[in-house]
């Protein structure tokens, strides 16, 4: 009889889950555009240049800049924090994960408060305020957008690389040291090659996050009419040209898939990245010697500019009655004040909004639930991807698990509504229930879970698993006794990324949420869209605070696991 290859069942199972979560909604939007005139308009008409090709070019430049910049900064910080004796390691470690939790519109606004020139009118930034003249290229467009994206997404690369470095087998480094290799030699000859999967994973995550980001190019690009695929896509959905929007979304997917396919090929060229053996000690920290001070200052400087500064501005903006004078007349009204008809148009502070507590619990429940489920699916997918490859199926798992990353949230939400908004056969419509949100958010966070899971699982030496298999341990047994414990650090990192992503997400939930299922990010967005910026900033800070607490908790868990 025809024998199925080993691992077929698991691969097939993971594929089935991905089909429901990712493939089905995407297929829906593909079917919606079949035979549509929009294809020609997007690809080959007098509109194509502005609708498609220029935004595509900008998107690619931003994506590549984000990937390179994030890997450089994130990798550098991860190396400093995990491998060296640089002072303030713990502080740096926390600071370097924070930017991901700061909404990109906050960083973009922070850039504006420094560099904004008079092009978009209103009040100018601090530099022009001091009498300097800021050219348009520094105030608007590509340069500031790339800066904002890098300063936000290097945290992704940092998290992935740091998790990988932390689980590096110390023996190899020690062996290098004993053999008399120089520090430089150890870093470039031993450490760097071993963390290559993590660097590539971090780079791809940053690339995908960069190309699908909406807020930064929308705020900083629009005044000089720089469009990206995501701003174009949003605009098309907004003015009712949904088919064109869907096609742009598909284009974005194809382009990114090509880029990531090339990355995967690079990764596949190497036979094995196994670095976690059954034994092995943690590496001794590398002594930086005279470079300690300058490197520490550089790292702190990076963190200050990308993390502390935006937070300070956000806090100020939640306390100052006027956006044009951020540091005067501070009041706590926007947080706890009672309604006063003569102030802030009668709006009471956020803690007096009855919806806030409901939204808070709903957000936490969604965040925890989605993170756990997503990481579990991610781990299974990672096991599949690092196991014996089954033609077509394994590749399908790899592509599907990463697809959601490339989809701008708003398109993702639209696809989910298109498919799961209405009843399917005997299943009721999910619209109006938290399940629709949960499902979409699990799918959206899968790339984080799979990439972090992969980077960790790739390092687990097959020897251990093989040994267990020989003693007759089944798949589930091996998963819980070997893979899970060894991968726990990477998984906590993955869960944290997923959690933070869920509670801060706006793009996806803005279409899917219903008033009965309020979440914090939508509450913040509502305030902002009504011009209640201080209230919006206060809610954003609340989201940030939860994220920070989650990070601290995750670090404590990781510490205990040692």
């Amino acid at each position, binding site marked *: 009889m025809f024998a199925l290859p080993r691992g077929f069942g698991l691969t097939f199972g993971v594929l089935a889950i991905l089909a429901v979560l990712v493939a089905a909604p995407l297929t829906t939007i593909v079917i919606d555009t079949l035979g549509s005139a929009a294809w020609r*308009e997007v690809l080959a008409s*007098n*509109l194509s*240049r*502005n*609708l498609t090709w220029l935004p595509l070019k900008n998107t690619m430049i931003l994506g590549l800049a984000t990937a390179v910049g994030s890997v450089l900064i994130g990798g550098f910080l991860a190396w400093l924090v995990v491998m060296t004796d640089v002072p303030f390691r713990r502080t740096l470690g926390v600071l370097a994960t924070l930017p991901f939790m700061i909404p990109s519109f906050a960083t973009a606004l922070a850039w504006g408060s420094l560099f904004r020139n*008079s*092009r*978009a*009118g*209103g*009040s100018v930034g601090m530099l022009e305020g001091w009498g300097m003249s800021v050219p348009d290229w520094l105030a608007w467009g590509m340069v500031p957008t790339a800066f904002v994206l890098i300063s936000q997404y290097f945290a992704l690369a940092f998290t992935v690389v740091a998790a990988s470095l932390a689980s590096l087998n110390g023996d190899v480094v020690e062996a290098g040291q004993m053999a008399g290799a120089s520090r430089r030699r150890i870093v470039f000859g031993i450490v760097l090659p071993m963390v290559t999967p993590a660097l590539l994973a971090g780079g791809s995550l940053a690339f995908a996050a960069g190309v699908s980001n909406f807020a930064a190019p*929308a*705020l900083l690009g*629009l*005044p000089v*009419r720089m*469009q990206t695929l995501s*701003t*174009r896509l*949003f*605009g*098309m959905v*907004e*003015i*009712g*040209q949904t088919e064109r929007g869907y096609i742009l979304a598909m284009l974005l997917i194809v382009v990114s898939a090509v880029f990531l396919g090339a990355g995967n090929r690079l990764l596949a060229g190497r036979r094995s990245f196994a670095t976690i053996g059954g034994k092995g000690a943690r590496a001794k920290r590398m002594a930086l010697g005279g470079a300690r001070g300058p490197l520490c200052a550089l790292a702190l400087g990076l963190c200050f500019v990308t993390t502390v500064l935006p937070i300070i501005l956000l806090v100020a903006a939640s306390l100052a*009655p*006027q*956006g*044009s*004078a951020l540091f005067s007349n501070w009041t706590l009204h926007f947080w706890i004040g009672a309604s006063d008809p003569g*102030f*802030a*148009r*009668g*709006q009471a502070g956020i803690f007096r909004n009855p919806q806030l507590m409901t939204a808070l619990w709903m957000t936490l429940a969604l965040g925890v639930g989605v993170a756990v489920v997503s990481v579990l699916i991610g781990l299974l997918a990672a096991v599949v991807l690092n196991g014996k490859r089954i033609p077509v199926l394994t590749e399908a798992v790899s592509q599907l698990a990463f697809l959601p990353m490339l989809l701008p949230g708003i398109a993702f939400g*639209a696809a989910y*509504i298109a498919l799961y*908004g*209405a*009843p399917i056969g005997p299943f009721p*419509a999910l*619209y*109006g229930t938290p399940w629709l949100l949960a499902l979409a958010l699990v799918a959206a966070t899968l790339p984080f879970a799979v990439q972090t899971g992969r980077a960790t699982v790739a390092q687990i030496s097959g020897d251990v698993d093989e040994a267990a298999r020989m003693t007759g341990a089944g798949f589930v047994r091996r998963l819980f006794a070997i893979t899970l414990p060894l991968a726990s650090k990477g998984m906590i990192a993955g869960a944290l990324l997923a959690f933070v992503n869920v509670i801060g997400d706006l793009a996806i939930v*803005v*279409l899917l949420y*219903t*008033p009965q299922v309020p979440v914090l990010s939508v509450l913040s967005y*509502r305030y902002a*869209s*009504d*011009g*209640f*910026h201080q209230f919006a900033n206060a809610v954003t800070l609340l989201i940030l605070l939860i994220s920070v607490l989650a990070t601290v908790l995750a670090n404590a868990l990781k510490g205990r696991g040692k």
Partner: protein
Amino acid sequence: MRFLPLLATLAMTVPAWAQDLDTMPAADLLPLAQAEGTVTVYAFTSRIGRVEAAFEAAYPGIDMVSFDMSSTEQIARIKSEAGAGIAGADVVYISDAPVVLTELFAEGLVAQYVPPRVAELVPEALQSPLLAQRLSTKVLMYNEETYPDGAPVDNLWDLTKPEWAGKVIMVDPLQRGDYLDLMTEIVLRKDEMAAAYQTEFGEALPEGEDAGKRFIADLFANDLVLVGSTDDVNAAIGAKGQEAAPIGFTSYSDRRDNEDEGWALQVANEVAPANGIVFPALLAVNPKAANPAAARLAIDFMMGDDTETGGDGFKPFYVAGDWATRTDIAPHPDAIPLDDFNGWTIDAAETAKIRAEVADLILTLQ
């Protein structure tokens, strides 16, 4: 219009009591509404919060649940809910008339309701096919601190001149429907635009040139600055302490925030051929409303009472820059009366016809 026969069939099968609801005075609706006990409202303005408080004070025992979301979002939501077979809202309070009329009303997702007592008080054009509660704007505004002697321009074509290069600001019409409606109206009014061109430059446009499209092209070519939201426009134009503040298109009624935000926004009314568009804020019922009586009572309430300023139900909307559609509500003392206001009132049906074409024109200009 393949839905019309279907609609007609549906209308005939609607139970008699539903048609009765449309003709009942508020006093008769009240006991039915109280039995329903709740009413859900989707509204495109945060001011609905104050309506909710006033409504619950006026009609104890009926809980108004209000949700504030943009018109675009409401449209997406109402379509999704209809697809899922859910009656989310009882009452819909919405702008974006060109899309609402062609996509929601035409497909029977929202329905007209005119409280009998105001039927005589609202002009026919403003109660059919859907009832308008007030009129709002996207018009040319300037900074009255920078330009204390009045608006620095008197003709829309001024905005295409070199001295305004990089100094005209508005929201990207390809990201916000209201602004696309504004551009569309300029194309619809091409004859008036051609006359204004003659006035401004002393010569006529070449024969056969579409003045509306030409204006849009020239405006974009003059380094028009685009931003993402109306608030960005307000801050850019309105912020105090600017030596050469830009000028641009935003809502007249946002002037009410001048004090709170430290702005100096003022409307440019003496502009040829017009300063922008005036468009309706519509009130409609969900034909499948879970609370049909309370829905009608809520609309009745939001249309205001018989006092000169419309009473508590209309109070949140009695501000300078918004005009009540009821002819018996006195114009706001601080605002230019609608009759003297120089904006074009949009024609939703005409706008809907060429809106996509104008969007494509703008796309090629960016």
